[in-house]
């Protein structure tokens, strides 16, 4: 067993002291001299033709510096996936949802900007709106985008093996339909930004984003600037969870307003605008047919899914693929068919959210698997263990599990929850349920087709030798990536964590695709490790020449150079170091050569010591169309057991305990891994029990605030026991892979299975509000009578 000095520990996060004292700077904490404030005009209608936009009164309001519409912004199409660039910065001919952006204003203060917005007069011709999948797909339905007949944003048809043949040979075949509702990202910090177009034509955008790199490219494309003239800086970000993983119209507006006025422009979304912009979880309707043998062997799955997508594509092309591909594992299953349809509606666009595309698919299927296990009189745990993939297996849709601690996860939650003592032995109203899941550890391909590295890291040793500074474009959004990369750097170089600084989230520091698809620990972790190894090689290389020892004789540990054999005379190096630091108080002493001395000498010999790291995934399998969505260098997996209590008179569900085991390959920071697990479970709990974005019949959101859109509070959360499983991923840095999203996968179905165990009722529609549960319980007791 290798022992580590820094990684695999519970080191405190390096950003925590600043965050605990209010020093950490988030986007709205920045101001700039002579800064203007911007505001956006949103459509009040779900679907309408724009007949005329009159900005004259807004422009003449004292204090207004610029008003921009599509006329000024142009009509460059953008989006997330180049295959579906279906947005423009502002609407010019039509608005497609309540919230669609029409104009923006920059003024001396926010009040003036908002007043100017209210003075812009838009004449509309209202068009019939489609607010549901059924309305959008009906014959003769109004079309949102002329290029997409039937409001079909994207469809996917996959078949692996022969599903019909396999189902015909099964002993048990079940079909169920499950429906979920739209969820909001619910990050506590609304998006905000400050754009500053300098006098030399360079644009700097500070923004609360998960993906500085993609924002840089989109801004450059839409505003027709060279990419090299656009710099995107991400300050500390107050949570993202997916919806902040793409460029938004506010960022583009702030940039253009700054270009027009020559002044910095600050803009924020209100909480209502966060809901309007959305880009959060789709509403999914899955119909699944699963076939199994009498002995419990899963043979085939037919999965049909309709995604209610909203007015634009956003991440939806990936979402519709994920809703199929993420059922390829973690069970051995030779036959799988998937038909997915993402439908445009006159509502805010849905996009990516934690567990992208796979969460409801997982919920539907894992509940159905429980039903099948029950019909076969099999214990749900045994049923899953029987079908489990093992490391080295490749799913029917070509997902290769190079490491897979799935069995260990199941056994851990089974034993950790006391499953055997509880299952089938709990009183009425109390229930226990379990589920499994897995997720990608980074998308195997960049969003735009490219041979680009997915990340580059530059690490620089200060010329005094005392500090190692990591520069990366990766995005710390609360998940702890800065700490992870600092720990990897310290471990790789053999120095204390305190000697490592990190600057991240800036496109000036190189390419990094950002924080999405649970990619950073594995991908940026690789590049970080490579950069540190480069530095180590350079410094030790100088030592070998200066001291005439073989590099194999040298190592660095705890900040000291370690010689394999005694008797190496480094007194000359020390003399040289001391000579340059006369009068300093912290001189190296003792009989060990410090890393600081070695690094200083290396600088004197070679100039600045700069290490470079880069990463892109190995060649990943999957020849079929859409294989890029789902293939990953590695997969994290998890199992959960939920204990629930249901008030049989009111339908109120209380979760009493959640036991969660996650295989993260190798935990760089054990506390951070647990934090991701606990946070994932909370988001799943919210979606299962009460989160739902509600619309009226005009397409307006009825609960665009945290009073009426219910996020879980501390009182809603049960005790969560997190169990870390480490399978040592061969393609991960130090064996590490994801934890940020995989952990949410089993949560909803484990809750559904526990609620069934408590009540005897299966629920196929989320969320499980007390009203819904109460009605179902009442209906059940009526049937009994």
């Amino acid at each position, binding site marked *: 067993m290798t022992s580590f000095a820094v990684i695999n520990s519970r080191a405190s996060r390096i950003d925590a002291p600043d965050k605990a004292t*209010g020093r950490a700077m988030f986007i709205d904490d920045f101001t700039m001299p002579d800064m203007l404030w911007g505001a956006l005009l949103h459509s009040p209608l779900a679907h309408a033709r724009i007949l005329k936009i009159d900005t004259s009164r807004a422009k003449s309001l004292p204090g207004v510096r610029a008003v921009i519409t599509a006329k000024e912004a142009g009509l460059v199409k953008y989006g997330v996936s180049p295959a579906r660039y279906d947005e423009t910065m502002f609407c010019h001919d039509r608005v497609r949802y309540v919230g669609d952006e029409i104009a923006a204003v920059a003024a001396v203060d926010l009040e003036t900007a908002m007043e100017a917005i209210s003075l812009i007069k838009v004449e509309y011709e209202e068009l019939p709106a489609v607010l549901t999948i059924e309305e959008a797909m009906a014959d003769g339905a109004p079309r949102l985008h002329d290029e997409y007949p039937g409001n079909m944003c994207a469809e996917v048809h996959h078949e692996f093996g022969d599903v019909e043949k396999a189902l015909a040979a099964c002993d048990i075949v079940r079909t169920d339909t499950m429906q979920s509702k739209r969820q909001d990202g619910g990050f506590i910090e609304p998006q905000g930004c400050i754009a500053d177009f300098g006098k030399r034509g360079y644009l700097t955008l500070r923004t609360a984003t998960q993906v500085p790199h993609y924002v840089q490219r989109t801004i450059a494309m839409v505003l027709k600037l060279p990419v090299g003239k656009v710099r995107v800086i991400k300050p500390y970000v107050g949570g993202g969870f997916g919806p902040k993983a793409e460029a938004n119209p506010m960022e583009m507006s702030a940039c253009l307003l700054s270009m027009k006025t020559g002044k910095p422009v600050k803009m924020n979304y209100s909480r209502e605008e966060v809901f309007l912009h959305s880009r959060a979880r789709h509403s999914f309707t899955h119909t699944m047919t699963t076939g199994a043998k009498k002995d419990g062997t899963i043979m085939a799955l037919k999965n049909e899914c309709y995604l209610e997508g909203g007015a634009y594509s956003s991440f939806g092309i990936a979402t519709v693929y994920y809703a199929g591909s993420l059922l390829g594992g973690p069970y051995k299953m030779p036959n799988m068919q998937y038909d997915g349809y993402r439908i445009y509606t006159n509502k805010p666009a849905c996009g990516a959210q934690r567990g992208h595309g796979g969460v409801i698919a997982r919920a539907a299927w894992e509940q159905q698997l429980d039903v099948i296990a029950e019909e076969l009189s099999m214990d749900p745990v045994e049923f899953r263990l029987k079908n489990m993939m093992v490391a080295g297996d490749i799913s029917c849709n070509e997902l290769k599990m190079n490491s897979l601690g799935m069995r260990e996860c199941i056994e851990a939650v089974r034993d950790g929850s006391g499953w055997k003592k509880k299952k089938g032995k709990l009183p009425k109203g109390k229930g226990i349920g379990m589920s499994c899941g897995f997720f990608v550890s980074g998308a195997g391909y960049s969003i735009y087709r490219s041979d680009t590295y997915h990340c580059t890291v530059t690490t620089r040793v200060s010329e005094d030798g005392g500090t190692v500074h990591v520069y990366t474009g990766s995005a710390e959004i609360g998940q702890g990536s800065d700490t992870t990369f600092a720990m990897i750097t310290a471990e790789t170089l053999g120095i204390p964590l305190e000697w490592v600084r990190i600057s991240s989230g800036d496109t000036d520091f190189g390419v990094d695709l950002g924080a999405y698809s649970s990619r950073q620990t594995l991908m940026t972790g690789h590049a970080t490790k490579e950069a540190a190894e480069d530095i180590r090689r350079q410094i030790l290389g100088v030592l070998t020449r200066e001291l005439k020892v073989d590099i194999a004789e040298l190592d660095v540990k705890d900040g000291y150079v370690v010689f394999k054999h005694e008797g190496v005379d480094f007194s000359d190096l020390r003399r040289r170091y001391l000579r340059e630091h006369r009068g300093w108080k912290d001189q190296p002493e003792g009989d060990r050569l410090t890393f600081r001395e070695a690094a200083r000498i290396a600088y004197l010999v070679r100039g600045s010591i700069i290490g470079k790291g880069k990463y892109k995934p190995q060649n990943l399998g999957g020849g079929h169309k859409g294989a890029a969505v789902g293939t990953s260098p590695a997969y994290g997996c998890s199992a959960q057991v939920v204990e629930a209590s249901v008030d049989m008179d009111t339908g109120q569900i209380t979760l009493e305990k959640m036991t969660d085991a996650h295989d993260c390959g190798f935990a760089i920071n054990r506390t951070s891994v647990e934090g991701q697990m606990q946070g994932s479970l909370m988001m799943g709990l919210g979606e299962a029990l009460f989160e739902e974005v509600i619309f009226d019949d005009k397409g307006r959101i009825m609960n665009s605030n945290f009073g009426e859109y219910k996020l879980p509070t*501390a009182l809603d959360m049960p005790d969560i026991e997190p169990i870390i499983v480490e399978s040592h991923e061969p393609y991960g840095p130090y064996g590490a892979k994801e934890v940020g999203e995989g952990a949410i996968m089993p949560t909803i179905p484990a809750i559904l299975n526990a609620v069934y165990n408590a009540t005897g009722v299966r629920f196929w529609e989320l969320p499980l509000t007390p009203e819904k549960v109460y009605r179902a319980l009442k209906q059940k007791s009526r049937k009994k009578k």
Partner: protein
Amino acid sequence: MKTLISLIINDKEYEVAVEPNRTLSDLIRYDLGLTGTKKGCEMGECGSCTVILDGKPVNSCLVLAVQADGRYVKTVEGLETEEGLHPLQDAFIRHGAIQCGFCTSGMLLSAKNLLENNANPDETEIRRAISGNLCRCTGYQKIVEAIDSVSGRTEKMGGKS
């Protein structure tokens, strides 16, 4: 028409002219530059802007600046003393109770208020005390553990709000 108000924030006296509709949160953040207090919803629902006003935690987005005239305010910037970090700050750091950090300031102040009124809260009391502070990252558990680790040590915490 601006009104002149004076108030004490973190033991420092301020005299400022404010518009009648200026909120306490905007006064603290934008006029006085104490940006540790966050704004997440501006409707008193998320708790990010929690400060302690005359010994009681309030959503500062729901308090007008003029209402704070002549009163004492404690913000996150006032938790640290010359002796170092407040024990709650230290506990939040050590227990991994901070992820994105956006709710942290408000959480710390709600927790501080709890422990000042109830030195040995049980888990439910801790959860209730922070139930007005939304966190989307942590699942609350490490926050609860951090607060619990400090409970019973209130007498050592010193300071007034």
